[in-house]
């Protein structure tokens, strides 16, 4: 059984963080998996710090994934692994692979900038400049996304889960800015209608809502 974890954050363990796209793939795949929520109360955090080096990870970190004797850290390595496992990959065509990689990296850039703002003590002062830059990025990204339904047109890949989750996160902060990006908005709407994800979207877990970032950040997002 595949084991995952929430990105741990001090205070609450249920933040979406960087690991949520992988959890969406697991939900979508309808495979049997265990989600380990690390409530990082002080004692659970100390427990993690004590145990992290004895779990068989070469470079202990959060989030992690265990699948049989495969043990992975680094959220991007995890999501790409699950992509391969469930056939959510671009295929052999070089142009498809490149398009997929570029989308992946652009989303990483967008999420990194968002994360940097959310944890910045000067959040309020820097927000306007962040949003201005976001708008410029969204114009380009929106054109790139195009008609869809997925990044690679008809073929769904792991990057679609990254696009969905991270744009969904940023929407919490900047709903109007995202709404201006037509193709991106359409992409999100279509993704929310995926049959295999309806069970999750109707679940108590989803409806309860989750922190995006640590509750101690400047933008917890819940």
């Amino acid at each position, binding site marked *: 059984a595949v084991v995952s974890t929430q990105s741990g954050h001090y205070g609450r363990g249920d933040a979406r963080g960087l690991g949520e796209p992988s959890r969406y793939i697991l939900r979508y795949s309808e495979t049997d998996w265990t989600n380990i929520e690390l409530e990082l109360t002080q004692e659970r955090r100390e427990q993690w710090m004590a145990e992290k080096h004895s779990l068989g990870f070469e470079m202990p970190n959060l989030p992690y994934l265990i699948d049989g004797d495969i043990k992975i850290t680094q959220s*991007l390595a995890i999501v*790409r*692994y699950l992509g391969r496992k469930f056939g959510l990959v671009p295929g052999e065509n070089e142009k498809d692979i490149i398009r997929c990689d570029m989308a*992946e990296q652009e989303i990483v850039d967008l999420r990194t900038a968002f994360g940097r703002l959310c944890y910045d003590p000067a959040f309020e002062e820097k927000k306007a400049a962040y949003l201005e830059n976001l708008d410029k990025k969204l114009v380009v990204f929106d054109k*790139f996304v195009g008609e869809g339904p997925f990044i690679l047109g008809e073929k769904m890949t792991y990057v679609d889960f990254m696009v969905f989750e991270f744009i969904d996160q940023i929407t919490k902060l900047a709903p109007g800015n995202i709404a201006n990006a037509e193709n991106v908005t359409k992409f999100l709407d279509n993704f929310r209608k995926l049959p295999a994800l309806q069970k999750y979207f109707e679940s108590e877990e989803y409806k309860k809502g989750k922190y995006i970032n640590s509750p101690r950040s400047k933008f917890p997002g819940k």
Partner: protein
Amino acid sequence: SSGINAEWPLRPGLIDGDIKVTQSVAIARYLARKFGLVPGELERDIVRCEMAEQEILDFHKAFAALCYRPKEDFEENKPSYHANLDLKLAAFDKFVGEGPFIMGDKLTYVDFMVYEYMSQVRKLSPDNVAKVGNVVRLMENFEKLPTLKKFFDSGEHQKEQFINAPYAYFNGKN
């Protein structure tokens, strides 16, 4: 700039015939496939390679984040940066192991990333990197690669160059 890629006006960019790539990681992976500097088909190998790719990027991100801080913040954050660097280097060193390269005998694109980004980290923090023997050995192995020997012998890589933008507090040349 309108850039080399109509889809994304970004630098760096690569043009190879009618193939246009932006995003440094996408470029590195493309060149890896083109020149066979790839981990192969075994899942275990691909996972190892991709973890290494992400770990070295984390080193680079932390390094860059420090370097672009204004002077007071830079000096204030340097000790905690180094404390964290030592922890990460220790784990990474164990991961690197015997080598000669990340994937053992097989040279892959992540070795190029490790060499370059760790060189940058080393510029600011030579004592910290010197302590991790497997990493140091990997970098020495890289410098001995026959087709790169000419470049390294020329000393061009030791010429003073900017690592970061000139306006960064630590730009690699100061």
